[in-house]
């Protein structure tokens, strides 16, 4: 299980920087190619060169708009979707990294422990009751409040004596997901037909609702969460020693816990508000990166955000092209790929701990 780490040569300062930088460069390339490919692919094909030229035109760097309806397809349909994918992917993976660090547990993920569905309850409530108290930001705000309540509940319920047992965490997730499902069902029961369709599509997780105003609505919580998260990297490293040892090293653990709960709620709300529940990104991405770049959060947090963005852009491209002209809901696709990974991770964690007990 730790063979890969053991085989690594002594971690000098050079290597500590070299590996994350190489991975970052790779991720930027994968993301860039993903954006171009996704922008080019669809019922109306546009060449990558035309896309670059159109971007250059908009930035005032020369180039020209895509001919005919292409320009509109690119800027009003594909780009909003891609940008939303980048935001949602970065938020989900970053939230997963923070939660895993906070719980000291690789199984923590906003989807599995129920934070996503908690935030979804808030979003569905605002759709079902037609709430508009904060204009465009209403769904985001409701998702944030419900997400905040859920993270707090999960945190309080799944901890005992400063530790989180895997069993308690997963069982708490089941309970919270169950309650959230019931509440969503209740709201659907009271909703009219149009709202039901909106809720159902939204619930399966999809980027197809992306528009610029909606992106603007999730941008504040996403940006705030993503900017604040790296500030906690060093302290999250220390938290890996346990709560008391972290306190012995000068970390104000109680304060940090509250801060992280708020940040995770911000990120989850941003991820869920427009695109619904897209699972397993927050679980798989940080885990793979930890294997490649090591567990240090100073590299892990920014790399997770980049990798989450890249993965979601490519996943969405797959979701809308494999069964074209139909579209597989993105949440269904990530669950299909992510669930087996979760099985593997469960078994591995269980083996390492010698059973759940």
């Amino acid at each position: 299980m730790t063979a890969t780490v053991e085989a690594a040569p002594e971690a000098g300062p050079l290597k500590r920087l070299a590996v994350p930088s190489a991975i970052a460069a790779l991720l930027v390339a994968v993301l860039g190619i993903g954006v171009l490919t996704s922008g080019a692919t669809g019922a109306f094909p546009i060449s990558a060169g035309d896309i670059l030229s159109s971007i250059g035109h908009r930035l005032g760097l020369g180039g020209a708009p895509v001919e005919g309806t292409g320009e509109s397809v690119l800027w009003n349909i594909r780009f909003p979707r891609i940008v939303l994918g980048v935001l949602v992917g970065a938020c989900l993976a970053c939230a997963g990294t923070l939660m895993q660090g906070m719980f000291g547990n690789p199984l923590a993920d906003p989807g599995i422990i129920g934070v996503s569905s908690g935030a979804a309850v808030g979003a569905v409530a605002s759709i079902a009751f037609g709430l508009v108290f904060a204009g465009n930001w209403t769904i985001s705000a409701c998702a944030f409040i419900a997400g905040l309540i859920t993270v707090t509940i999960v945190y309080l319920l799944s901890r005992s004596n400063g530790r989180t047992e895997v069993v308690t965490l997963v069982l708490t997730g089941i309970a919270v997901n169950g309650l959230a499902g019931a509440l969503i069902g209740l709201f659907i029961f009271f909703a009219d037909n149009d709202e039901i369709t909106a809720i159902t599509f939204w619930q399966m997780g999809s980027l197809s609702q992306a528009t610029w105003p909606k992106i603007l609505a999730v941008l504040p919580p996403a940006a705030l969460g993503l900017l604040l998260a790296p500030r906690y990297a060093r302290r999250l490293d220390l938290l890996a020693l346990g709560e008391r040892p972290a306190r012995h090293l000068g970390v104000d653990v109680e304060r940090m816990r509250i801060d992280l709960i708020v940040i995770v709620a911000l990120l989850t709300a941003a991820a869920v508000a427009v695109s619904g529940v897209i699972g397993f990104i927050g679980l798989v991405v940080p885990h793979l990166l930890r294997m490649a770049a090591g567990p240090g959060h100073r590299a892990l947090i920014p790399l997770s955000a980049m990798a989450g963005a890249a993965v979601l852009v490519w996943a969405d491209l797959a979701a809308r092209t494999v069964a074209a002209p139909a579209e597989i809901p993105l949440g269904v696709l990530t669950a299909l790929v992510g669930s087996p990974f979760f099985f593997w991770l469960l078994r591995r964690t269980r083996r390492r701990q010698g059973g759940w007990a």
Partner: protein
Amino acid sequence: MRLRARPDAPGPVPDPAAAVRDLTVDLGGEPVLRGLDLEVRGGEVLSLVGPNGAGKSTLLSALAGDLAPASGEVELWGRPIGDWHPARVARRRAVLPQAHRVSFPFTVAEVVAMGRAPWNGTPAAGEDAERIAEALALAEAESLAGRAFTSLSGGEQARVMLARIIAQQAGLVLLDEPTAALDLRHQEMVGRLCRELAERGSAVVAVLHDLDLAGAYSDRCALMDRGRIAACGKPVEVFDAERIGEVYRQPVKVETDPDTGAPRVTPVR
């Protein structure tokens, strides 16, 4: 970042470095410590010995500032420990816990470097690399530096954690059963290490089960019995066969090591 907030220099270790005054601690409604007084001095190794459940680890936790006393005071550098910001406390006292657990596969070098976290943003941060290397050497853990902490044996993990505590450069070092997982050679290493830290001016407090080790390496020894200190002083004075027999409810005989003069406690079998 809060860790960097208002760096302060701890300065030389004051006398006493830490103290508990009339300390009573309740755990789960039961009094675990009953009106204790103890002073901890720089340049001195103080060992806490006593039977299981006597309150040794609780006293150590109280000194560390982990427990809220039911009554009495815990002082660090002459001030109530609760008045300090956690970062300032961390530049003055280091704690080696009984259990060693690291959630993710950090390397040994990274774990030891975590001991330098309190000095982040202070002038002392410039010595980080030097301190980490020195701590690894003192705990005989240099050869483990590149390995994942989670892949080590219990004894190796204990030595790495010890190195983390040394790297923290605290004036007050609290060790909870530092020898528990260690073999004979490394138990002696811990004893010498405690002496080395005391010689550099630190106050060292260690919970020990091995009375011979306590006798050989400590300046003072506090024998605890049911939440009180039954005796405190030089090991030769504290290790009285009758008193030890009473506190542990096990008859013992106490001899003097002909080579070192340290007391040697053997159960009467």
